[in-house]
C-alpha cells in the first residue's frame, strides 16, 4: 500500500489555554491509484489530517508511512515528501502571486529543482489538463481571471509537480454549479491521465459517492467509519447523527422505499437511480 497511517494523534496549542485535541488515534491505509473521499462535519479534523499527510503538521504521536518511509521521522527531506504528495488547499486561488499564469504554475516545479525547460513543459501540460487554453492564458496576470479560472490555475500549480498522491480540500467550495461540475470532471481527468491516488475532501455526498473507491468518515477528530461508498452510505442513521447526509440519489431511493415501493437502496449516483427507476417502471410491461 502507498499510504499507511497508524495511531495518529494531534493536539493544537498544547499546554496553552486554547488547547484542543484535533485528531485521536487515526489509522487507515490507501492503496496506489485509489480514489479516497473524506467526509465529516466542519471542525471534525479533516483539514488537520490532510496537512499531516505532506508534513505541514507534525503529529503528537503515531506514524505516517508513504511507500514504507515514515515521514514523521527527523531525517526525511521535506522536498521529497512534497514531490510525492500534492496538496490543494481550500480556496487555492488565494495563493496565486506571480505576474503571469505561466510563472505561477512554474513555481512548484522550479522549487522541486527542475530545469526551466522541464518546468515549462510541465506548465503547458498542467494548464491543458485543468481544461484551460495555454496560449490564451499563459501570459496574463492570474489576478485578472475569473474565479473558476483562478482556481484551475491554482490547481494546475500543484499538478505541475506531478504528485503520486493528490489531495484536494473542498476544491469546489464557493463555485457555481457549472464550475463545480467542470472541476469534478477535471479531477477525474487528472486521475486518469496521471494515474495517481486522489484524496478528495468534500461536503458534497453526491460527488463522493460518484467518484470515490473508498470513504473515510471523520467525527470530532476520530475516524468514525471507513468503507466503500456503498458500505458507508448504507449507514444512514449513523451519518445523520454525525450531521452528514446521503447522496441525493440514495436519499430518493430511501424515500421511495419508505413509501412502500420496492427499490434497491444501494443506489449511489443519478445514473444508477435512473436505471433503477426504469427497471421498476417497466417491470410490469415486459
Amino acid at each position, binding site marked *: 500500500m502507498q499510504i499507511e497511517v497508524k495511531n495518529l494523534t494531534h493536539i493544537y496549542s498544547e499546554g496553552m489555554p486554547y488547547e484542543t485535541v484535533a485528531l485521536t488515534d487515526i489509522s487507515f491505509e490507501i492503496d496506489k491509484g485509489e480514489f479516497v473521499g473524506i467526509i465529516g462535519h466542519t471542525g471534525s479534523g479533516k483539514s488537520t489530517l490532510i496537512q499531516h499527510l505532506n508534513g505541514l503538521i507534525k503529529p503528537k504521536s503515531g506514524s505516517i508511512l508513504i511507500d514504507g518511509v515514515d515521514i514523521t521521522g527527523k531525517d526525511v527531506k521535506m522536498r521529497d515528501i512534497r514531490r510525492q504528495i500534492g496538496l490543494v488547499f481550500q480556496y487555492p486561488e488565494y*495563493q496565486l*502571486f506571480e505576474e503571469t499564469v505561466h510563472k505561477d504554475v512554474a513555481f512548484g516545479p522550479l522549487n522541486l529543482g527542475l530545469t526551466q525547460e522541464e518546468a515549462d513543459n510541465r506548465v503547458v501540460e498542467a494548464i491543458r489538463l485543468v481544461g484551460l487554453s495555454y496560449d490564451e492564458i499563459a501570459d496574463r496576470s492570474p489576478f485578472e481571471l475569473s474565479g473558476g479560472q483562478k482556481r484551475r490555475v491554482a490547481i494546475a500549480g500543484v499538478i505541475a509537480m506531478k504528485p503520486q498522491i493528490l489531495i484536494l480540500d473542498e476544491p469546489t467550495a464557493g463555485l457555481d454549479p457549472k464550475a463545480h461540475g467542470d472541476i469534478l470532471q477535471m479531477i477525474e481527468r487528472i486521475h486518469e491521465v496521471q494515474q495517481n491516488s486522489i484524496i478528495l475532501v468534500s461536503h458534497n455526498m453526491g460527488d463522493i459517492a460518484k467518484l470515490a473507491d473508498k470513504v473515510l468518515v471523520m467525527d470530532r477528530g476520530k475516524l468514525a467509519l471507513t468503507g466503500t461508498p456503498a458500505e458507508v452510505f448504507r449507514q444512514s442513521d449513523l451519518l445523520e447523527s454525525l450531521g452528514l447526509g446521503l447522496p441525493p440519489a440514495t436519499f430518493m431511493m430511501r424515500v421511495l422505499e419508505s413509501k412502500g415501493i420496492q427499490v434497491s437502496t444501494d443506489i449511489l449516483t443519478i445514473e444508477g437511480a435512473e436505471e433503477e427507476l426504469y427497471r421498476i417502471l417497466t417491470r410490469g410491461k415486459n
Partner: protein
Amino acid sequence: MIRDITLGQFYPGNSWIHRLDARIKIIWTFVYIISLFLIQSFWGYIPVLVTLGLIIGVSGVPLKFILKGLKPIFLIIVFTFTVNMFMTKGTPLIEIGFLTITEEGLYNAAFMGTRLVLLIIGSSLLTLVTKPINLTDGIEKLLSPWQKLGLPAHELAMMMTIALRFIPTLLEETDKIMKAQMARGADFESGNILNRAKSLIPLLVPLFISAFRIAQDLAMAMEARCYRGGSHRTRMNGMKLKKKDGAAVILMLLYLAVVISQAQGLFGRFI
C-alpha cells in the same frame, strides 16, 4: 508556529483582575510605567516586584506564559544592556582593547535591563487580563473628555478595535498561505538573508491581497448597517465603576505613595 506569538494576547480567565474596569487597568498601567522611571536604586524595585507578583498571582496567568512574551524583545534588552555596560564612564573594572567595562556601567546595565523587563511584563499584563474589546472601550472613555477639543476619540478607538480584531485573522491567513506555498515546495527557513527575503514574495503578495479584500468586505458590511462613527452612539453594556474598582484605585495610590517615598529616600533610615 506563527500562532505561538503571545505579545499583546489575551489570556482568558475570570479573576478579580480580569473583572476590573478596563479604564482602571489602563490608568494602573500608566501609573506603573511612570513609577518605574521614578525609581533611582535597586531597592526601589522591591515594591514593584512585590506588586507585580501579587497581580500575576491573583490574575492566574502562568508566569511561563508571560515570560514567553519577552522573547521577541530579547534583542532589545541585550542591546540596552551592552550599550549601558560599555558606554558609562567611571571606575574601570575590565579593559578589553578599546572597550572598558566600568563598575558604574555594570550597575547601570543591570538597572536599565531590569527596568526594561519590568516595563514589558507590566504592560503586556494589561492585554493579558483585559479583553481587547474592553480595552478599546476603556480607551475611548478615557479619551472622551478631549473630544470637545476635536480629538476623534470614537474613531481612534474603532480603528484600534479593528486592528486588534484582525491580528488573529491575519495571522491565520499568513499561516494558511505559508502552508499552501510550502506544499508547492517553497522554503522559508533556509538560505542567506537575500534569498530569504526573496522567498517571502510568494507569502506577502497573497497576504496583501487578502488584507485589502478583508478590509473592503468589512467596510462594505459596516456601510450596509449604516455605520456612522462618533456622536450619538450608545452602548448596550455601559461601563460602570464598581466597588472593586474603587479598591483597585486605593491600592494604586498606596503603591504610588510607597514608590515615591522610597525614591525620595524616606525609607533610608530603615534600610
